[in-house]
């Protein structure tokens, strides 16, 4: 075998090895990223459950022992950001992403419900946005709406935003949509019980909020889109 032929074969072997290593590394990093999300999700899940339990134990006087809203909103926002980024990277049809989204939505719904209870018990008036989007390609304004809500949430931390993929196959989400009678005209918003469909501009969206609602206080959850 000539030196040239031998060098070609070695170079080919090196190339295959490099490409295989890169493919393995990408898969490994993907798994690490998903595992990190799962860990955060489990932590938040435990803390939410703890809060619910605490709330049940002290049902008579919840406001004396807990804050008037959950303190997990910033973690939930961070989790949402990470999940959104991972969805962009791996694609919305990735089975692992779908599973994590389901768990995340369950956390959001639980956080939404417990805060609703706390607000009623303690007489507070949090500003809550339920945001429904689709990434099936049938909602050209969803990305703009998601970005606008992210801006509002970052600017007005008092705002609590819960975002949901309208078409995700999750029983609790379907029930929420059915109970609240949310139409599939997306993007859809429920701002403190008031329904709004479609997105034109940030200024128009801001008009949907109750007067004085947009003021800075504590941070809230995120917008996945």
């Amino acid at each position, binding site marked *: 075998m000539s*030196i*040239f032929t031998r*060098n070609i074969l070695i170079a080919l072997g090196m190339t295959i090895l*490099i490409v295989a290593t890169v493919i393995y590394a*990408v898969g490994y990093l993907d798994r690490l990223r998903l595992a*990190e999300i799962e860990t955060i999700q489990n932590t938040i899940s435990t803390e939410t459950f703890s809060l619910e339990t605490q709330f049940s134990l002290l049902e008579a006087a919840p406001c004396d022992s807990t804050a008037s809203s959950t303190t997990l909103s910033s973690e939930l926002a961070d989790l949402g950001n*990470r999940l959104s980024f991972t969805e962009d990277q791996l694609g919305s049809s990735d089975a692992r992403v779908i599973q994590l989204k389901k768990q995340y939505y369950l956390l959001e719904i639980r956080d939404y419900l417990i805060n609703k209870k706390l607000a009623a018990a303690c007489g507070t008036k949090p500003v809550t946005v339920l945001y429904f989007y689709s990434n099936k390609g049938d909602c050209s304004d969803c990305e703009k709406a998601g970005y606008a809500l992210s801006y509002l949430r970052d600017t007005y931390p008092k705002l609590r935003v819960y975002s949901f993929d309208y078409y995700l196959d999750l029983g609790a989400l379907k029930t929420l949509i059915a109970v609240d009678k949310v139409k599939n005209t997306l993007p859809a918003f429920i701002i403190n019980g008031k329904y709004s469909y479609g997105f034109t501009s*940030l200024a128009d969206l801001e008009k949907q909020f109750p007067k004085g609602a947009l003021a800075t206080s504590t941070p809230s959850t995120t917008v996945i889109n």
Partner: protein
Amino acid sequence: MSLEVVTYPFLFLTIFFESFLLVTLLSHPARTSRERVASSKTPKVAVIVPCWNEESTIGGTIESLLALEYPREKLSIILVDDGSTDATYSTMMRYADNAQIKILKKENGGKHTAMNLGIEHAKDAELIGCLDADSFVDPKALREMITCFDEEDVMAAAPSMSVHEPHTLLERMQAVEYQLGNAMRHILSATNSLYVTPGPFSFYRPQVFQNIGPFRHAYLTEDMEMALRMQRAGYRIENAVRARVYTKAPDTLTKLIKQRTRWNTGFLRNVLYDYRDLVGNRKRGALGLIILPFSLISVVFAIGMFGNAIVQFVQNTIHAIATTSGIPIAYLMTPRAINLFYWPYSATALLSGVLIAIVIALIVVGKRLSNTSGTLLTNIVLYVVIYSLVSPLWLIRSVADVARGTANTWR
């Protein structure tokens, strides 16, 4: 068609190409070549300096030749003024009394005609070299060049080149590129795949011109055409990696694009029109099967990737403007905290990283083998960033010139 369909095969090909270079660098012929000890032989040598309007550099070029560590009686310098309209000829005439120097003057006819006139006047030389009038040789360079010819089948040899006193960003970028070129020349010579014998200080046995003829116009890349003609004839072209030659590099983008367009159109025209038989030719080994085909493919791919990058940039910008419409600029410009979680790795990015790492390794090898002084680290950053932005400009122009049949000019 998805971009990945083209990107991944090309990345695979490029990694294969770079792996081949690394393997060849470590193989026996390359090791033997760089372990070569400078020869003590002193054959009669003639160095031809073709000049056209080089008044600012010709003096330094001549002085560097006179400072070569080589017996004076064995080294003759032939200065050929190719119809300069500036003070080149009068500067040459200052050396008219030097017995080593012969001065010729002719009407302007192009560099190849000046070289051929010089060759006619180098009848008794055992080796004939050339040196562009904007280049300067290291005192030990000739000894290193001569050593290549200790092996009788070597018909020509090319030196290592460096940028003379790089100051501007573009010059510093080219300084790095030249070190990569030195590594490439060293590696390609190990598989007899050199397809350029550069104007600055390449040497030939006189038999080359006797057997395959003198220099040709060759689309203003006579040094490339001569090397391709030698390859077709089955001649061996060596590299003296420690023979250092310093050349003036273009210091403005306009000059750089002009120079590189000339080089690239020369490459495309020579290879596609006159030496197409070498491409894919198994008899030509690495040159025919790997080097020339890959060089052609890379031109197309580099332009394609650049075009795609521009389209993507425009699309993303329009999309970003549409998506963030109405959001205050201050919010958009607020820096976000760096978090490794958001590192946007992908197979394409990692494979590109591998390619850049191999290129940087080759640059370091080129610098070390040629013993070139100067800083490297910041210049490598300049090279990686600037080169990827500006090189598509001359590639696009070259392809356009070749497609439209536009003739190029020297300056």
